C-alpha cells in the first residue's frame, strides 16, 4: 500500500543538520495494523505525519497507492490523502463550534457529497458508534472517550483505506483506551482498514500486527506479532 525509501527529515541548525528522521525505509501492506513506539523525540509523530502527507521529508522516496508522492504537487497530494487517509489525534481536535453530527459530516462537505448522501452516511456512522443520542451535543459537552469516538467516526466517515492515529488513547483513562483499541482491532479485522498508530503503551501496541520501535530517528527494531 505504501512504501518509504531512505526517508530523512532534518533541520539545519547552524552548520549541522539535526535529524528527526534518519534514513528510514518502510513497507506497509494493505490490512496491516502497525504500532510505532519509541521514547519522546524519537520521531514517531514526524514519521506518522510524513506518511499522512501533512509533513514533507527532506529527502527520500515516498510511494502511496501507486502514486509517487514525493513528486506530487501540493494540490494532488491533498487530493490523494483526502481520498485514502483518515486522521485521529491524541487531543481529538474536534471543531468546537460544530456539533457531533456536524463534526462527522464536515469531511463529506469538503468532498462534495450531496446532502442526502451525507445524511445517510453520518446516520450510519452514528449508529455504528452508538452515539446517535449525542449527535446534537458540542464537543465540550462530551467526555474524552466520547470525543475520541467522534474523532474516529470523523476519520472514518469518508471511507479511508488508511487510518493514522497519533497516540489516540494518550488523553484517555485505561478503560476508555481499551475500548478505542478494541474498536481499532475490529475496524482492522472486519473492515480491512489499514491502521498505523503511534503509542507509548506496550499494551496498546500489542493490538497491532507489527510493532516498530524508533530511536533517534531510526528504526531500532521491528517485530511481527
Amino acid at each position: 500500500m505504501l512504501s518509504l525509501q531512505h526517508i530523512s527529515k532534518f533541520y539545519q541548525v547552524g552548520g549541522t543538520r539535526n535529524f528527526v528522521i534518519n534514513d528510514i525505509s518502510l513497507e506497509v501492506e494493505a490490512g496491516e495494523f502497525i504500532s510505532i513506539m519509541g521514547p519522546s523525540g524519537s520521531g514517531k509523530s514526524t514519521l506518522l505525519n510524513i506518511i499522512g502527507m501533512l509533513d514533507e521529508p527532506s529527502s527520500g522516496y515516498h510511494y502511496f497507492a501507486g502514486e509517487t508522492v514525493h513528486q506530487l504537487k501540493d494540490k494532488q497530494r491533498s487530493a490523494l490523502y483526502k481520498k485514502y487517509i483518515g486522521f485521529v489525534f491524541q487531543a481529538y481536535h474536534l471543531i468546537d463550534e460544530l456539533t457531533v453530527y456536524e463534526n462527522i459530516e464536515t469531511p463529506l462537505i469538503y468532498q462534495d457529497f450531496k446532502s442526502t448522501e451525507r445524511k445517510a452516511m453520518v446516520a450510519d456512522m452514528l449508529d455504528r458508534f452508538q452515539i446517535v443520542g449525542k449527535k446534537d451535543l458540542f464537543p465540550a459537552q462530551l467526555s474524552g472517550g466520547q470525543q475520541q469516538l467522534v474523532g474516529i467516526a470523523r476519520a472514518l466517515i469518508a471511507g479511508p483505506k488508511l487510518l493514522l492515529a497519533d497516540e489516540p488513547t494518550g488523553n484517555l483513562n485505561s478503560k476508555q483506551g481499551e475500548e478505542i483499541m478494541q474498536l481499532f482491532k475490529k475496524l482492522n479485522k472486519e473492515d480491512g482498514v489499514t491502521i498505523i498508530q503511534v503509542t507509548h503503551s506496550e499494551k496498546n501496541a500489542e493490538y497491532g500486527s507489527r510493532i516498530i520501535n524508533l530511536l533517534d530517528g531510526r528504526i531500532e527494531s521491528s517485530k511481527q506479532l
Partner: protein
Amino acid sequence: MIRNYIKTAWRNLIKNKFYSIINIVGLTAGLAIGILILFWVQDEFSFDGFHKDAKNIYRLELWGGTGASRQIWQATVYPIGVLAKQQLPEVEDVVRIGYNGDFASYRYHDKIFANDRVAYADPSFFSVFSFPIISGNANKPFNDDNSVVITKSTAQKYFGNDNPIGKVIIADNKQNFTVSGVVADFPENSSMQYDMIMPMSFNIKHMLAQKIDLSDNFDEYDCFTYLKLKPGTSLKALSAKLFNIHIKHHSADTDVAYLLLPLTKMHLYNADLTDRGITTVRVFLIVAILILIIACINYVNLSTARSMLRSKEISMRKIIGAAKSQLFMQFIVETALLFLLSAVFALVLIHFLMPVFNQLSGKQLIFDITDYHVWMVIVLTISGTLLASSIYPAILLSSFEPLKALKGKISSNIGDVMFRKILVVTQFVFSIMLIVGTIVITSQLSYIRSRQLGYDKSHTFSFPMRDMGNHYDAVRAELLKQPGVLDVTRSNQNIIQMNGISGETDWDGKAPGQTFIVHLMTIDKDFLSFFKMKMAAGKGFTGAVNDTSHLILNEAAVNQIGLKDPIGKRFQAWHIKGTIIGVMKDFHFASMREKISPAVFYYYPSYLGNMYIRTTGRDAPKAIQAAQTLFKQYNGEFPFSYTFLDEKFNDLYKGEQQEGTLFNYFATIAIGISCLGLLGLAAYTAQVRTREIGIRKVLGAGVSNVTIMLSYDFVKLVLIAIIIATPIAWYAMSKWLQDFAYRINIEWWMFLVAGLLAIVIAFITISFQAIKAAIANPIKSLRSE
C-alpha cells in the same frame, strides 16, 4: 455548502460576543455615517441633472470689468441670447430669466403673501427645462403678457383645492395676473427655485413704459441667459461668435468675454470652472471614505489578530479535507454575515439620523428606499467595504500551514503585526486630521465673529418700510419715544450684505479705458453715527439739500483707484454724480471670504426704503411691537417681516457653520470607531500576553508596570500617527483657509491639542483592558497554560 458556511459564521459571531459587538458597532456607525455623507455628496452632484436636455443646456456668463475689478458676471444683457438664437444655427433655443423685483406682495381675495421667488421668463422656460407642467400647455405657457404660471404648492397656498387656472392674482394691488398654468414644485436639487413665473414680455413692456428698451440694451446686466445647443457645438467658437455679436451692437465692450457653463455644473462650479462648492463636496467625499476605511480597518485588524486563536479550527478543517478555496469562502461568508447585520443596523440608524443630519447640513434629503440612487449608494458602499475587509483576512486565514498551527507554532507574529500596526496608525492619522480640521474651522469661525466689522450691529433689526417710508420723520419721532428703542436710521439696503453694484464709474483723473466697479448704497444723514462708523477724512452727510450732490467713498475705493486728496474731487457712479466730501473707514459689508470692496455712499432720501432700529436688547420685543404697529398703520395687511442684523450676519456663514458642526461630528465618530478597534486589539493583546503578564507579576511587577507596558505599544502608534497627520492636516487646512480674505494662522497648539486628545482617548481605551489584565491573579493565568 453555503448553509454550512452561514451556520459556522453565525456560531462564531455568537461565541465571540465581545469582538462581534465591537465589530458590529464600529461597522454600523461607520456605514451609517459614511452612507449619509455619500447621500449628501450624491445629492450635490445630482443638481440640475434631471432636465432631459441637461447635457446640451448652458448658462451664458461673461468676464466683465477690467483690472482688479474684472470678474465673472452671471447675469447678461437681455438681447444677446435672442440674437444668438436668430443668427447662430448651433443655438437651438434660448431662455432668459430675470429677477422680478417689481412687486412686493400678491393677493387673491383676502390672502396676501409677500413673495420674492418670482421670475420673469421666456415661454421656452417650460420646453427647454424639464419642469413638468401639471395643467396648462408647456409649449404655450402664457396666454398673454398678464399670465402667470405658478407651482403646485403656491396654487395650494392661494386657492386651496380650487382649480387655479383662470384665477387672478393681484400684484401690489394694481396689476392683475391670470394663472395660465401650474408647474410641479421645483425639485430640491434644482438650482432654480421659483414660486411664480411671469412672462418676460411683461417685463419688457413694463420697462419700455419707463423708456428703457431692453431688446436693444447692452448696459443692463440683469438677466440669466440659458442656451440650448446642438450636441457637439464647440464652446470656444460659440463664445467668439457671441463676442462678435455683442461688439457689433456695443463696440466699447472690447474686454467682454463670454463663458458657457454647463447646466449640470452650475451648482458646484463658477463659469471659469473654479470652485463654487465642488471643494466642499470633495472634502466630504474624502471624509466619507476615510470613515469607511477606519471602520474596515477595525474589522481587518481584529479578525487577523484573532486568527491565531482560530488556527486549530482551521488546521483541522484542512486536515479533514478542506481546500483552500473552501476555507476562503467560509471566511468571506463570515465577514459578509457580519457586514449584513451591520448594514441592517446602519439602515435603521440612517432612518433615525436623517432628520438630524438634514438639520445639520441644511439639506432636505429623504431616505427613500424606492429610489434606486439610494440603493446604488448603499450597495456600492457595503460591497466596497466588504471587499476591502474580507479579502486579506480570508487569504491569511486560509493559508495557514495546518501542522504548525495545530502544534501552536504559529507565534503571535502571524498575520504580520507590522501590518496591523500600520493600519492602526492609518486610522489615527485620519482621526487626528479630522480633529485638527475641526479645531481650525471652529477657530476661524470664532475669529470671524469676534473680528471688528467696523460698525456696531448689536441689538439692531431692520425691515423694508414700504409705504411707511413716506412718513419717515413722523414715524422716527414716534419710535424714538417708545421704550426699548435707542436709535433709528435708514438706508436703501441691508448693511450686512450690500448688493448694489455699478460698473459705470467716472472720476477726476480716470485713465482712459480704466474700469472700476463699486458697491453703491444710499444712507441717511445719521447712518454713520447710528452704526458708530468712523471717517478717515472729510465729513459725513448733514441732510442739507445739496447733499444729494455729495459722495462718500470708503478707503478701499480711494486706494484702489489711487485717488490722492479725494476730498473735493468729482466722482460718478451709475447716475449718481457729485463731489467727494468724505472718506469712510472700511467696514465689512460682505462675507470675510472677500476683501473689503470699494463702496460709494450717497444721499438720496427718496431711495431710503430700509429702516434700522437699535434696541436695548432687553426691550427688543417692545420695540418690534411698536415698529409693527406703525408698519400696519401705513401698509395695511401687508406682512411685516424683520431681521436682526446678528441673524443675517450669521446667515452669511451658514455654510461654514454647517461645515464646522459636521466636521465636529465626523471627527468624533472617526475617533470613536478607531478607539473601538483599539479596544478590541488591546483586549486581544492582553489575552495573548496573559502568560507573560502572569510571569512578570510573579517576578514582582506591579499593576502600574504592567499597565504601562501594555499601553505603551499602542500609545507609540498614536504618536507616530500625530507625526504623520500634522503636515497633511496643516497643508489641507491652509488650503481651506485660503478661501478667506481674513483668516487665522494655523498655530502649533492646534496640533498639540489634537494629538493630546487622541492620545488621552486612546490611553483611556487601552488602559481599561491593560488594568484588567494587570490585576488578574497570576496563578490563574499560569495554571491555564
